[in-house]
Every structure is written in structure tokens, then in C-alpha cells.
């Protein structure tokens, strides 16, 4: 049986742990021949070509300009006859609708680390943490002493208690617990002599003095934010700063810089909000046995998330208008279904992406989510983890949230919010809210989407309720067949379609039904 072949970056030179993709030679979604050149990558030695290992449809998972690790996948080749048929058509439709392929012949993929999978020319480049840091670094000149103060974890914890943050301290300084306590007046200030000695070490006669540290050291230690010293950087008055969003007049405002992470998040959401006309529909599903079912399958470690991603992703192929982007009278259809899922475990809200979630089993999705959770905890999520989300799911059902209105991210058309409620009898009801861009579709379609999603989730719960009937069904049959249209594998082969293993309904589903064309 033909399988999807992953194109990985080979270890070509002994030096490199990563390479840079220079250009793709054909648009993603194109049919390619075996050995056809797919892209050029730059190693430390030379530019090398990467060729298609088999014939099929090439689906890219990295973009030109990306720095990708050796061994990582940059492309999947789906052999002819597999479900990629609809990918190809969706891809072509998307390309012809936004016209980017018709003129140049290659997709315009912005050379940035993170971007929408099919960015439109007018889309602003989404800054990532790394590039934001670089901008700030450049803006402040080459001197490392101009970056905001760095606090240890312990110092930060103590600082929060006193209402202090990194901007309460001179730029370029290192801040420890005792520095915070000193700033808060809980410890006596350092004597000028020893402090000056540290600073003089930095000055060394070449003007490289950490000027923030130097001037602060000479001045009396500032008191906490609540009673700011005149001119202290931590608490700036609104009058001195140009503002985009004017505060209510007549009320005093103390401005404090938000963490960079929060600024980025806000920017993405604000842009999503500014460019969409948001509407939402909500429905509920009683899922008394759903969690039990998941438990038996070993899928509960990420809550309901994996299952919801699994079903929603497959459903998005049937409802492509929710896996899309609106731009000035056009709809841009994403070729892949890459589902972002919101995670907030105390280190800030982040939305890592399960790429091509519609082609993965629940177990593969759980594996990816586990990896991302681990990296989230280690603060090691990389730009690759955020790459190219086309749809987002925010599951707060385990957090005691019944219902909420999720915000559509920039470059997307919809977001699914999952809330939950457990009644007195212990039965759980899930509330699914689909917020969507009304420019692309309407509430009726959104309603169909969530209802069908509910049906699929209930089917999982039903499996647990009546496992024998559904699971046993395909077993006596010698030849596999599609559980939806009942066509046999051999019959499907004649029309160049095929069966893929399915969880719900159990057994097999043919590529025709799977693509939602039944």
C-alpha cells in the first residue's frame, strides 16, 4: 500500500545542525515526479537540491527562508490515489482564487520564521519573539547594557509582591532577590563604595559604562512603584508618551510596559479582530461516557483536546470556509488543516500548532501535544511549534469554564471554544462555541459544523456505551469496506480511491467519504 513519504533534511555535512531553505521550485500542493527538484537548501558547504523521493502531491511543511533542523521534515509527498486528491484541488482552488500562483508560478512565501501557511501579499509579517528581541536590540544600539533588566525567577517572584517588574530596574542590569528587597526598602542600600567598584569594572576607561546601572547606583535607591520618584523609568506618566488608544479623560493612568509575550499575543488577536466580522454559535453535547472512553484509550492526558482536534480537523475538510482567510472580497483557502490549541499552564498563553491534524490519528495528536506541553514547561517551544496555524481550539472545559467567546486569531476564519459543566449527577455537558468570520460564511453553516462535530463526539461516547455492536461490525468481513458508503476496497481501487483506517466510525472510511463529497 502506498504511503505518504516524508521528505527530511539529510545530514549532508558534518558541520550543520540546521540548513536554510532558499526557494521552493513548485507550489505546495503540486503534483511532482520522482526525482523532480523540490527546493534548494543552503548548508554551510553549498547550496544543494532536494528532490522528490517518489511521485505524488508535494505538501510543504516549511517555507522558503526557514532555518530547519537537519533530519526534520520539510515536505510530505502524498502518492497518487491517496486522500491527497482533495488537498490538491483545494490547493489549486486557493491559488487560483488569490492569483498568487498564476503570475509567478511559485507561491509567494514570505521568508520569515513564522507566518500563515498561505500568506497574502498584504499580510504584515508576524513578529516572533526572536525577531522582536532582535528589533529591540537593534533599536537600542549594539550595547548589551541597553536591554531591559534581567531578573532571576526568585527576584521576579519577590518583585511581583512589591509591585515591581523589570522596568523598575536600570536597563542592562542583573537583578537578584536582594536587589528587589533593596529596591523595595526591605534591605539597606549597598554602600556606594562597593557598588561603584562593580561599575568601574565595567567602565574600564572606554565609555562602555552600563549607564543605567552607573547613574542609578549613584542616586538614592528608588522606592516602589506606588510612590514613584520623579523621572523614574518604571512609572511613566501618560502625558509624556504618545498613545494610540487614548484613556478615559479625567482618570489618572499609570503606564507599565506589558511583557513582550503579552504584547505579541495582543497584536495577533487585535489584528484577527480588526480584519474579521466576528459571530459565534454555541451548542452543547452531553458526554457522560466520553471521558471514560478516552480513559480506556489512554487519551485523557491532554483532556478532551486531542479528540476534539482530531474530529474538528477532519470536519474542517468538509467545511473549508472555517479553514480560510478573508481578504478584500476574496477567500483564501488553506491547503493544510493546522490546528492551534491554546495552552496556559502559568507561563503565559501560547498556541502551539498540530500540523496537518486532519491526517493524524488521535494518538499521533496526543504525542505532538505532549511534546509541546513538555517544551512549554521548559520554555523551549520553538517558532516551528507555532508554525502556520489555520484554525484554533481553546479548551477550558477542565478549568470549570462553562461558556466563553473565543477570539479569532490573525489570519484565521474561526476558533472553537470548548467549555464544560458537570451536573449534580456527575454527568458532563460540553459547550462548543464556534466563533467565525461572518464575511466568509453564515451562522447556519457554523451551526452545521458544530452539530456535526457534536455528533462525532457523541459517537465516541456511544462507542463506550455499546462497544460490541460498533467495534465488532467489520470483523467478519474478509474484505475491508467503507463504513459510510459500504463500497469495498477493490471497488474503490477501480475508481482510484482508497480506504483509510478510521476510528469513528470504526473500521475504514473511503477517501471519497473522508473528503466530504458523499
Amino acid at each position, binding site marked *: 500500500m502506498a504511503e505518504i513519504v516524508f521528505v527530511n533534511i539529510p545530514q549532508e555535512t*558534518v558541520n550543520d545542525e540546521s540548513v536554510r531553505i532558499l526557494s521552493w521550485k513548485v507550489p505546495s500542493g503540486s503534483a511532482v515526479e520522482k526525482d523532480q527538484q523540490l527546493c534548494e537548501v543552503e548548508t*554551510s*558547504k*553549498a547550496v544543494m537540491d532536494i528532490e522528490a523521493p517518489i511521485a505524488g502531491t508535494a505538501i510543504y511543511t516549511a517555507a522558503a527562508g526557514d532555518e530547519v533542523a537537519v533530519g526534520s521534515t520539510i515536505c510530505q509527498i502524498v502518492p497518487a490515489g491517496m486522500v491527497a486528491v482533495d488537498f490538491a484541488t483545494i490547493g489549486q482552488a486557493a491559488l487560483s482564487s488569490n492569483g498568487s500562483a498564476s503570475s509567478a508560478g511559485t507561491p509567494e512565501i514570505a521568508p520569515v520564521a513564522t507566518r500563515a501557511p498561505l500568506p497574502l501579499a498584504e499580510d504584515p509579517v508576524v513578529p516572533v519573539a526572536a525577531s522582536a528581541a532582535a528589533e529591540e536590540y537593534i533599536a537600542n544600539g549594539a*550595547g548589551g547594557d541597553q536591554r531591559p533588566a534581567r531578573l532571576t525567577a526568585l527576584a521576579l517572584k519577590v518583585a511581583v509582591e512589591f509591585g515591581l517588574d523589570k522596568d523598575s530596574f536600570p536597563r542592562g542590569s*542583573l537583578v*537578584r532577590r536582594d536587589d528587589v528587597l533593596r529596591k523595595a526598602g526591605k534591605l539597606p542600600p549597598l554602600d556606594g563604595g562597593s*557598588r561603584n567598584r562593580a561599575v568601574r569594572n565595567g567602565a574600564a576607561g572606554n565609555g562602555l559604562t552600563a549607564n543605567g546601572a552607573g547613574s542609578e547606583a549613584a542616586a538614592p535607591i528608588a522606592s516602589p512603584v506606588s510612590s514613584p520618584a520623579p523621572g523614574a523609568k518604571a512609572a511613566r506618566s501618560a502625558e509624556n508618551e504618545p498613545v494610540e488608544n487614548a484613556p478615559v479623560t479625567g482618570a489618572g493612568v499609570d503606564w507599565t510596559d506589558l511583557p513582550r509575550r503579552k504584547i505579541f499575543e495582543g497584536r495577533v488577536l487585535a489584528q484577527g479582530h480588526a480584519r474579521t466580522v466576528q459571530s459565534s454559535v454555541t451548542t452543547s453535547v452531553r458526554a457522560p461516557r466520553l471521558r471514560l472512553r478516552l480513559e480506556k484509550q489512554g487519551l485523557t492526558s491532554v483532556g478532551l483536546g486531542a479528540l476534539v482536534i482530531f474530529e474538528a480537523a477532519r470536519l474542517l475538510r468538509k467545511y473549508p470556509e472555517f479553514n480560510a482567510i478573508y481578504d478584500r472580497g476574496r477567500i483564501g483557502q488553506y491547503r493544510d488543516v493546522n490546528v492551534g490549541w491554546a495552552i496556559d499552564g502559568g507561563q503565559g498563553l501560547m498556541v502551539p500548532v498540530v500540523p496537518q491534524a486532519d491526517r493524524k490519528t488521535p494518538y499521533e495528536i496526543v504525542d505532538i501535544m505532549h511534546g509541546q506541553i513538555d517544551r512549554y514547561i521548559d520554555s523551549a517551544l520553538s517558532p516551528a511549534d507555532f508554525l502556520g496555524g489555520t484554525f484554533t481550539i481553546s479548551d477550558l472545559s477542565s478549568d470549570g469554564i462553562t461558556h466563553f467567546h473565543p477570539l479569532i486569531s490573525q489570519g484565521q476564519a474561526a476558533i472553537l471554544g470548548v467549555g464544560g459543566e458537570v451536573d449534580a449527577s456527575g454527568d458532563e455537558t460540553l459547550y462548543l462555541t464556534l466563533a467565525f468570520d461572518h464575511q466568509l460564511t453564515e451562522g447556519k453553516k457554523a451551526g452545521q459544523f458544530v452539530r456535526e462535530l457534536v455528533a462525532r463526539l457523541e459517537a465516541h461516547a456511544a462507542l463506550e456505551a455499546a462497544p460490541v455492536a460498533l467495534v465488532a461490525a467489520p470483523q467478519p468481513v474478509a474484505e475491508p469496506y467503507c463504513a459510510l458508503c459500504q463500497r469495498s476496497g477493490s471497488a474503490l481501487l477501480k475508481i482510484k480511491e482508497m480506504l483509510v483506517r478510521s476510528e469513528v466510525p470504526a473500521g475504514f472510511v473511503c477517501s471519497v467519504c473522508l473528503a466530504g463529497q458523499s
Partner: protein
Amino acid sequence: MTSRPQLQTTTTASLTYEDLSPDAVSWLHAFLIRSFEERLLKLFSEGKLFGTVHTCIGQEFTGVALASQLIEGDLIASNHRCHGHYLARTSDVDGLMAEVMGRLTGICGGRGGSQHICAHGVFSNGVQGGMTPVSAGMALAQKLNETGNIVVAFIGDGTLGEGTLYETLNVISKWNLPLMIILENNLYAQSTSQTLTLAGDICARAEAFGITSYHGTTANPRQLQSTMARAVSQVRDEVRPAFFRIDTSRLMAHSKGDDDRPKDELAAYWAMDPITRFTAQFPEEAAALKAHTEELVTRAVEAASKAPFANNGVDEKSVQTTPPWQQTSIEGKERMVTRIYQALKEHMTEDQRCFILGEDIEGPYGGAFKVTKDLSLTFPGRVRNTPISEAAIIGIGNGLALMGMHPVCEIMFGDFLTLAADQIINHASKFRWMYNDQVTVPVVIRTPMGGRRGYGATHSQSLEKHFLGLPGTRVLALHPRYDPHLVYQRLFATIDRPTIVIENKTMYGEYVTHETVAGFWAEHTREDFPTTRIRSSAKPDVTVVCYGGCLHEAEKAIDRLFEEHELVAEILCPIQIYPLNLGPILDSVKQSGRLFVVEEGQAFCGFGAEVVSAVHDAVSAGSSGSALSSARLGAKPHPLASSKAAEQDSLPGADSILAGILELVGHG
């Protein structure tokens, strides 16, 4: 190159230089060498010489026959038994006598002595076979610069046991270098008869490498001379190497007092000796030649005896300064390997003297670590693949450098520097001082060191400590916080000594960037080869000293040291690890009071031991005891495994550096 000095004959009535036919000149030189060395034996027994003396009494005509065929600009590379070669070529009795007597007026200021001479195009060194790849490099320079000159290297039959010789024979034949190797076959290696140590045939060795071999004997000087003429003409006119076996007899001991040969065997040699036979046949002429040459030698001894003894000159002061700190701009975002490549390319473009040699360095392969990439295609003939012959690679580099070129030798893995150790330690590092600063050896030896690649015990080591502390050399270690392009630029602009550049192999693929630990920044001393400091605005609690590949791990360690333990460290990472400028390290240690040194190699007798003791010396100087506490960390004391976890466990990494610092600080 000066021409041969003329014999001074003014006080001898019966003979003048101009009266002598070419053949008579040969006899005069043979007598001169004999008189010179007989006097050396007398001086030695009078206790007027230092060390020992190797005479060529009985072998005079090897050098004499050759000298008659050389032209101005031709070069000789000789060995421990070099007096005859030098006198036959130069007639410089005064200079050589003063040298052997250890006087300032000697050709090497008395520093070299009997075995280590350099003047008028004659170079000698005391290691068997060591000068053969050097002579190949000198011959390569003649060929590259199209001088039309040739190089002749002398070896003895004892040298046939040295592997370096065979590396050289292979290369000179493959590259068609204008080099003749003359083997003086006197049947004994010091006291050991050739019959006990030599297998096979001598000339067949050269012929196996495709080198034409010639044969002659000092017992027949006339025939030797004519064969020599043919051999020299082949090397010069066809630009093809030759091998010349000259059978000869050493009539005296190898050195002083180590002759156990049977008396009757020696008597037979004496009977065959051309000077003995000449003296029997032409007693009057012989007496005149003997008297004339002895007079020259006597005057040389008298002159030398009045001259002062050799001195050591003024040593370079050990540097201990703190130049101003600065930050450099790093353009673009490029990998270490690309920046090194660009520096090499730039120098190759700008300076015709640059020549790159090493294993597998030609394009398209472009080196095991792809540093030379396509340079061989851009600069045809100036970037050459060598056989797998590390001693020859560095030896040829030494020879090119002696000829004023700028060779860049690549040793594929630093582990293999050991195969070229003799060329580095006994040749490259010695020539300049030993030859009384008449020459410089601007050879660059680039080599990757370090582990974390799973290459196992013999391809992962950091062996640079074995090459630290050779006076007159320099060792640099690159790191990605300072642009290696700048390092090479300064190196090529200023090079005046053998320089080993350690390129950590895990860093080749890394991007050159200033970006370092959050809250810290990188700055560098304003020097050709600066010390990099990773510092913050806070007073450091500890000074961490490292170089090259360890910087990365040290950065990770000080990041965690601050985050998890609220301690501030400062990293001092010198690019020039020998000679080491202690100044910046001292300044930091005076602030922190604590010194932690980490190196990837074995720590015993290592870089860390040197830094710690030097800092202690400096801090405690002039005060009663120092409050400085210190520790050092190196690889665990066993070879490196190929298996990743075991290898990581052996090497000093962020975890062990952090643990070491905490223990030093007392937080452990």
C-alpha cells in the same frame, strides 16, 4: 642569496684561488673539510667545544661533488653531519668555526652549533629525516615561483628507518618537485651496522615511488662528479625529483667516542679514502693543500676564540596588560565555517604567497569540515590535496614558510597533530631562534579539535595542551562571539611565527553572533587576538576562564548560575591561548576573588593548571598570601566514547561547570 664566499689565500705563496682548475677546487674543498674537522676533533679533546661533534671525515666528496654542480640560488637541506656540505658549498670556514665554537660571530650567532646551521642557502637540523619534507616545501616554493633553482637534501642510511622520508618521497614524486635526495651510505647508523636494521634494497625504495635513482661512490670522485652532473640536470631541467645513493666511509666515530667498528674494517676504509690516496700519489700538492687549509682553519679558530660566546638575546616579555575593551560589529548572519572560508579566500586573492595544503581539501569535496570548499577551483594549483601524510603536510609548510611564503596547512582532525609533532616542535618552532632570527616561519596550521560529534577516542580529543608553551609559536582558539574572519585577517597581516589555530568542530556550523546570555554582553580587548569577556553590569561573584568550544557550555552554565542560584559570573575567553595575556583575567579575578577554569581536554598539566598557577603567582606577588580561591575542570580521565551519552558524560558541560562553580563558591 649571496654567492659562495671566496677562499682567502693571500698569505699562502704557492697557491692562489685563481690558479686552480675546477678539479683542483674540488680537492681544495676536500682538504679544507678534512683539515676543519680534524681541528674540531682536536678542539673537542682540548675541551674547547660544547656538546659533541659529528665529523664527515672520509665522506668529504659527497658535498664536494654536489657543490660543483650547483648554481646561485640552489639550496641544501642537511642533517647532523653538515659541516662538509656547508664548507663545500660556501667555503665559509670562519663562520662555521665560530658557530661550532659557540661564538656570537658564528653563522647562527653560536645558538645552533654543529648540527643546526643556516647560512648562504644551507639549512640543517638534527632530527633524522626531519628536513626531508622541509626540503620538499623549499622545492615547491622554487617550482611555484619558477626560480629554476633546485633543492638538495642529505640523509644517511640510518634515515631509511624514518617514516617521514617515505611521506616525502611519495609527495615529491607525485608533485614533480625539483628536489634531489642524496643518501650518504656509510653502512652504519651511529654504532649499528646496516646489516642489522635495513631490509630490502635502498635504491628500490626510491624507484618504488617512481623516482629515478643514481648511484656513485666517494672512492671514485671523478665518476661521482659526472653522475652528479646528470642527476642535477635531470632535477633542474626536467623538474623531476631524483634519488642519489653515494656509498662512502665514515673514517671516524659517528659522534665523539662511540666507535666499536673492527680495526681491520676501518683500515680498509682508510685505504679507499680518496684523500689518503691523493696524498700518497701527489705528496707535494697534498702537503701544500693541507698546509693552506690548516692555515685557514687556524686563523678561523683564532678569530672565533676572540669573539664573545653566544647569548640568548632578549626574550619576548610575557604580556600582562589590559587593553581597552571594545565591541566589534559582526556583519550579516553567517556560520563560523563560512567566515573562515571567506578569510582564506580573501587572503588567497590578495597575497600570492598564500598556499593551502591538506587532506581532502580540494573542491568539490572541500575539506572534511568544508572550510576550503571551492577554493581549489578558484585558485588552481594553490590549494592542494596531499596524501595522508601529516608530517609531510607541516614539513612542506615549514619549507614554504622558510622561503617567505604563507602556507596554510589543514590537519583534518586535531588528534593527528601528533603525527606532525616533530615538524611543529623540532622544526617550525625552532628555526627562527636556532638560526639566530635570520628566518621566520609564518606557517598557519588549522585544525579542528573537540568532541560532541560521536567520532570516538581518536577523532574527538582536545590535544592543544601538548602544543602550548613552545617558545616562538602562537596558538589561537576561535569562538563564535568574535568574528573568525577578523582573527584570520589579523593573523595573515601580522604573521611572523608558526601559528596553530584550533577550530572547535562543533562550532563550524554555528552562526557568528554577539548574542549571549540574557543580561550579559560580549566585549573584546583591543588586540590582534583579543580576549573576549562575557559580562554584566553587576560585580562578578566568580571569574570563569575558558577558550574555544567550552565557551558555549560556560555560557549555558552562567545563565543557570544566575537564574537558579542568583550568582553572577563573568567569562574570560582568550582567543590567543599561547602566549597568554593574563591581564584581563587578573582584572576580573581581582573583582570576583574566585577563578574557575574549564577546558575540554585533560586538565592534568593543562591550560587550567597554567592559568590558575599564573594567576596565583600574580595575585600573591607583593602581598602576604592571597584570598583567591580557584578550581579547574577538564574532561574525565579516560578516552572519549563514541556513544553519545558516555561522551557527554566525559566532557565538561554546562551541568558540570555549574556544579564546579557552586562548589567553588561554597553553595554546593
